[in-house]
């Protein structure tokens, strides 16, 4: 396994919200895989820098790319370039202590922030911005980021708007994340009852009738609709879930240098059940929301990589994970294969498919495999590239150090956020 960072696990380490530690228990399974004979971890080795895909394909019988979707989709609206607009991947990786993003200095939101998107990532961000910092301190959230969020709250951050273009029946968030918003003493989740009603057009009702998950979401959202009446008097921080609304422009602050607000317009749903599109309503007025921060959470995106074929839809052409490529021996798994959707369970099934395909291909190859110099050549080349290769045992030592530092501070772990520091510790 070749990994760019010294630390393994990808989104399990940097994407899962810090207050959802049980989701990260899958790491125990990863530790087991890592302890099997024949598994080797090469951390701090970057594909395209310290080793080439070409060299890997030459020296291994099969290469599986699990590089994920590192980019993000944009809104493509005026004002998106303003200081204060930030992408969810960067924002999440900032508070999760990713070495590439710890230095993010987000603009202060003022009294309100707007998160564009309706998935669990959007809810995670809203929750991290509004929960009690004292409670979050005990997690492995990056300390400096939490201190910054606490300062924003002291400065008056009271509302986080979570704005989605479709109705609640089409929204991608799931019930666990929705339900938990109403379990914190500091947070009041609210929904405008009118938007709940608007969400239930005829086609959406049909979609609702077929979805056990969406049926169970109705009670949760109706409770939030009852909370709506308290929004003017509550002392809690508010998470305002807004539906059938699209951002049309990011508005500048008075001095023009950063975000001052967000202009949104009303949508209506058109089309057949299961295929409804959000279309701007005619005749409706735009609404301006005052806010100092806009977080864009409308999806990750696969970034092009040398040697990885992408079709017109920016997807890798593959069959059960085997990349359609004349030379053979190249596979994909995870988000780079399916696109950036799904949960850990989806990726488990996905990985099983690719592994099954790969094993079947190897066993059906028959005859003598092409003469390959073998992995030791690659290893030698990697070490010659000058990078300090981090082994899995090295990673376990870093992990223990993070835990030790965390416990000294009342946290489950205090992540080391500088690669140089990690390497000096080894």
């Amino acid at each position, binding site marked *: 396994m070749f990994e760019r960072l010294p630390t393994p696990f990808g989104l399990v380490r940097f994407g899962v919200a810090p207050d*959802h530690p049980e989701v990260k228990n899958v790491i125990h399974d990863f530790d087991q895989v890592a302890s099997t004979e024949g598994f080797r971890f090469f951390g701090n080795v970057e594909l395209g820098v310290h080793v080439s895909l070409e060299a890997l394909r030459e020296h291994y019988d099969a290469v599986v790319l699990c590089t994920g979707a590192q980019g993000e989709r944009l809104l493509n609206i005026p004002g998106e370039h303003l200081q204060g607009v930030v992408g969810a991947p960067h924002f999440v990786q900032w508070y999760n202590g990713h070495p590439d993003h710890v230095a993010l200095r987000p603009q202060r939101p003022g009294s309100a922030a707007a998160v564009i998107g309706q998935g669990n990532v959007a809810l995670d961000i809203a929750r991290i911005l509004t929960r009690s910092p004292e409670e979050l301190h005990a997690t492995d959230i990056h300390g400096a980021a939490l201190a910054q969020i606490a300062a924003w709250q002291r400065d008056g951050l009271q509302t986080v708007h979570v704005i989605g273009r479709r109705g609640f029946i089409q929204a991608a968030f799931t019930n666990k994340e929705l339900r938990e918003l109403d*379990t914190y003493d500091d947070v009041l989740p609210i929904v405008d009852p009118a938007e709940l009603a608007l969400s239930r057009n005829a086609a959406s009702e049909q979609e609702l009738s077929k979805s056990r998950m969406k049926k169970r979401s109705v009670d949760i959202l109706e409770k939030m609709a009852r909370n709506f009446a308290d929004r003017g008097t509550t002392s809690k921080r508010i998470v305002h879930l807004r539906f059938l609304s699209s951002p049309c422009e990011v508005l500048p602050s008075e001095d023009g240098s950063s975000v001052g607000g967000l202009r949104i317009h009303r949508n209506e749903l058109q089309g057949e059940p299961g295929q409804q599109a959000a279309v701007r309503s005619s005749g409706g007025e735009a609404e301006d929301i005052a806010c100092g921060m806009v977080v864009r959470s409308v999806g990750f995106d696969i970034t092009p990589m040398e040697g990885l074929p992408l079709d017109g839809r920016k997807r890798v052409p593959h069959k059960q994970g085997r990349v359609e490529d004349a030379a053979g021996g190249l596979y994909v798994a995870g988000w780079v294969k399916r696109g950036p959707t799904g949960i850990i369970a989806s990726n488990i099934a996905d990985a099983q498919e690719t592994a099954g395909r790969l094993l079947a291909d190897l066993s059906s190859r028959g005859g003598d495999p092409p003469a390959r110099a073998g992995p030791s050549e690659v290893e030698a080349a990697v070490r010659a590239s000058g990078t300090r290769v981090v082994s899995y045992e090295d990673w376990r030592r870093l992990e223990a150090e993070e835990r030790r530092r965390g416990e000294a501070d009342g946290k489950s772990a205090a992540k080391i956020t500088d690669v140089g520091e990690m390497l000096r510790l080894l």
Partner: protein
Amino acid sequence: SSWPFWPSTSFPAARLASGPRARPRADSLPAAMSAALRSASAAGAAICRRVAAPSLVVQGAVARGSSARVAGRPSPAATWRPWAAHHGRPCITVTFVKAETGGETSITAKAGQTVLEVAHEHDIDIEGACGGECACSTCHIILEQEAYDGMPEADDDEADMLDLAAGVCDTSRLGCCIKLQKGRDEGLRITIPAAATNLLG
């Protein structure tokens, strides 16, 4: 090693649930204990007499689903219930059915174990990505209608996760959420749908 895929025996940073959803973590066993279990599961017939997995009760850690939720606070030393508390627990015969192949495995479980714990203890092929803490959907199992009706309903936490399980149906449950009971669960048939198999096992 004959069993390289047993979950790590290193003591995890304490993020285990206390309160109503406390479940012992199989992967918190010391190495000698898990080694004993591995050899014992092959014996089968002597299951009731062998050393049971001690329950791991951790105090002061995550409280799920409550308004005072605090994630990941490191716990004070865990309290191990001595094995004697499990010695002599009633035994129940349950049968796991693998949907993909129709293959059946009958094993003897102890009352109080969850379906997932029993499965992993006996090398039954089922995923449990979150370690049995009702935070994923990979231990999805399907019961027969009568058995399903005879059990207390899934609570919101379990139902929320079950919503996401591949192939979820009207008699689906999560294996980590069903605590086996003497009498009620004698002869229970538990179907493991194709998507839930554990390639690590």
